[in-house]
């Protein structure tokens, strides 16, 4: 069965992919069009119920919730992409290095990762933004830093397994240097594991960004952010409960979509899940 046919048959992958696409499309669309300006304050129109003009109603300053959600998606994706890229690049480099060098380098990298893991991610991010100041850039840095050890661990674990494979032994016997082996044999073979991790970390980054903004440490107003919309809605929970529902659903759907996509990807890329499973390694020559 071809990969595309299997992909269509994998329900997690299909649903997750659709949700993620919707998220990306919303963010892209919001760059050029929103029903109303998310920055337009119109106090007399505050706390309106959803209507033809305001699809998701208005917040306590009369801003259009639907438009704010659209622009908020941009924000979440921006934080997710940059923070995960930072983690992916630095973490993978460290992990692969550790797998290749072994010995004290591996120990040092892994103990450093353990050290970072000892602090709950969100606490670390709060500490970071509290010291450096609140704002979107600092929250990206904080989330990015925590992504590094996660990718380092995943990359090291899978890279070590690849190093044991026969084709790597063969390459070594043929006299290929270790950097060459890492680039040609190791990296391509751990890509599938990493891509699954990317989707999961992306979902986490969106959650963390929302959490930081909820606490007032992330994105600063007037830039809309799902987390801060939740916080604002909290004060009006009795008066206008729908204000909390919409950003809550947005966060839930985005995170659900990315997690399903990750699940689907894992199933698709995991050789054991397919009929070709007996022909063990996804070998490369």
């Amino acid at each position: 069965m071809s990969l595309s046919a299997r992909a269509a048959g994998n329900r997690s992958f299909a649903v997750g992919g659709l949700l993620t696409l919707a998220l990306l499309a919303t963010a892209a669309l919001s760059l050029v069009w929103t029903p109303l300006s998310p920055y337009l304050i119109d106090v007399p129109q505050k706390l309106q119920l959803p209507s033809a003009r305001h699809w998701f109603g208005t917040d306590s300053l009369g801003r259009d919730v639907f438009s704010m959600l659209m622009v908020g998606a941009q924000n979440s994706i921006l934080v997710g992409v940059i923070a995960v890229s930072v983690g992916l690049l630095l973490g993978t480099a460290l992990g692969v290095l550790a797998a290749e060098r072994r010995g004290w380098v591996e120990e040092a990298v892994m103990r450093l990762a353990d050290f970072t893991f000892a602090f709950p991610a969100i606490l670390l991010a709060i500490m970071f933004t509290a010291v450096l100041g609140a704002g979107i850039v600092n929250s990206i840095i904080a989330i990015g830093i925590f992504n590094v050890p996660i990718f380092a661990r995943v990359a090291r674990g899978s890279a070590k397994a690849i190093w044991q494979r026969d084709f790597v032994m063969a390459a070594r016997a043929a006299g290929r240097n270790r950097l060459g082996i890492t680039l040609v044999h190791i990296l391509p073979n751990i890509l599938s594991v990493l891509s699954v991790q990317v989707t999961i970390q992306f979902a986490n980054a969106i959650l963390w960004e929302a959490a930081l903004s909820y606490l007032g440490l992330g994105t600063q107003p007037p830039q809309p952010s799902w987390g801060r919309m939740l916080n604002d809605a909290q004060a009006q929970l009795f008066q206008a409960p729908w204000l909390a529902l919409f950003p809550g659903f947005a966060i839930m759907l985005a995170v659900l979509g990315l997690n399903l996509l990750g699940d689907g990807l894992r199933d698709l890329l995991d050789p054991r899940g397919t009929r070709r499973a007996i022909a063990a390694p996804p070998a490369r020559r």
Partner: protein
Amino acid sequence: MPRTCYAIAAAIAIALLPASGHGEEKKDTLVLGMILEPPGLDPTAGAAAAIGEVTHYNIFEGLTKITADGTVAPLLAESWSVSPDQKTYTFRLRGGIRFQNDEPFTAADVKFSFERDAAESSTNKEKAVYADIAAIETPDPLTVVLRLKQVNANFLFNLGENTGVILEPKSAASDATHPVGTGPFTFDNWVKGASITLAKWPGYRDAAAIKLDRVTFRIVNDPAAQVAGLLAGDIDAFPRFGALDSLKQFQGDARFTVTVGSTEGKTILAINNKRKPFDDVRVRRAIAAAIDRKAIIDGASNGMGVPIGSHYTPNDPFYIDLTGRSPYDPAKAKALLKEAGVSLPLKVTLTLPPPPYARQGGQIIAAELAEIGIDARIEMVEWAQWLDGVYKHKNYDLTIISHVEPRDLAIYANPDYYFQYDSKEFRDIMEKVNTTADASERGRWLEAAQRGIAEDAVNAFLYVLPQVTVAKKGVRGLWRNSPIFANDLAAVSWQ
């Protein structure tokens, strides 16, 4: 015969029913909601208004009392006389009063307290008032003579603020954690972050008149939790209710009474007068003209609140309405910026502390400033950061804050105050306000003072914070207005 017994028993039971069935256990306890937790409980040592909300009149008392309508009445002093030159005050103290640790209250305690307030190490918010006392004489245990260095027409009012309460020498050092005063309630328990409980003090001079046995101040910061607490019945009354957007639901509910009064909270957009380009009066006037007070009152205060044009409220003596001096006029604001030669867009920071008037009002102001080309970046901070960064180190451009202290025009005479307004002319006016004995002449100087800071657009003056109280039906005696931040529990009872 047994039948009669039953009948009598039933009659007694019925007779008892209404009394016990009406929530008798609630009649002598009260749970009051408050928004901010005080940092300590000694009002003479800290600036937080929350200290007075708990302790003033309840635990601690001063020589005079500021009543609900803002007038001065006797409290620990039963009478006083003022010399013709207004510099010597002779107080006759109430006799037979004891402190809650059983020490007698005498003139020596007054002398001790005021000297402590004026001392080098004093952190009293109104230190200047006490530093201005040249001599304290105690000819007999119930007479105190205060000689002032200069006339202070507000002196009796100052003594009635929570910064003027009388402490007992032996317990003064520990008053921040275990306050001991002369008031009707004693400190019972403080669960940090949650609540402070006071208990009725049987040794109070008029204990029979106090209706409540225990009062718990419950600290509820979150507006949604304030609403939930009242609806669930956990909180009996919330004197400075914060969730103004939710007010409608209490107004339509027969279980609650809602009163809307006023405070002395002058809400302002404070401007750092030393920072460029705000050192130019035209830029400050432009900011004032860019702001639509009505939009802010509607958006940040649910339409409640009186607009002001100076640092003075309509409750204060000799108030003049100066809102007409700085009407909403974006076109004029732009012209002023152009005249001042400011290159647009002007990038500034707008620092916002937690209350809704700042967080909500700040976003409206940022949008209004954007209209005239000022790009205000919002920075949200917690109280500790605000007190340290803005108030102490003056490290800010613009901020929104409410000054709840009554009649505090004098802060503009202090060039070191956080908005750094430095005007010799204004200081001279305040000098006249402070030292003029004749009431109507002093009034003219007070008007000049209000006009002076409005003319100089020291800050953009927004509105007076409303005092909104939501209480269960049957709670009596709470203040409708807040001339000072206090909860006078001696007058509170269940109907």
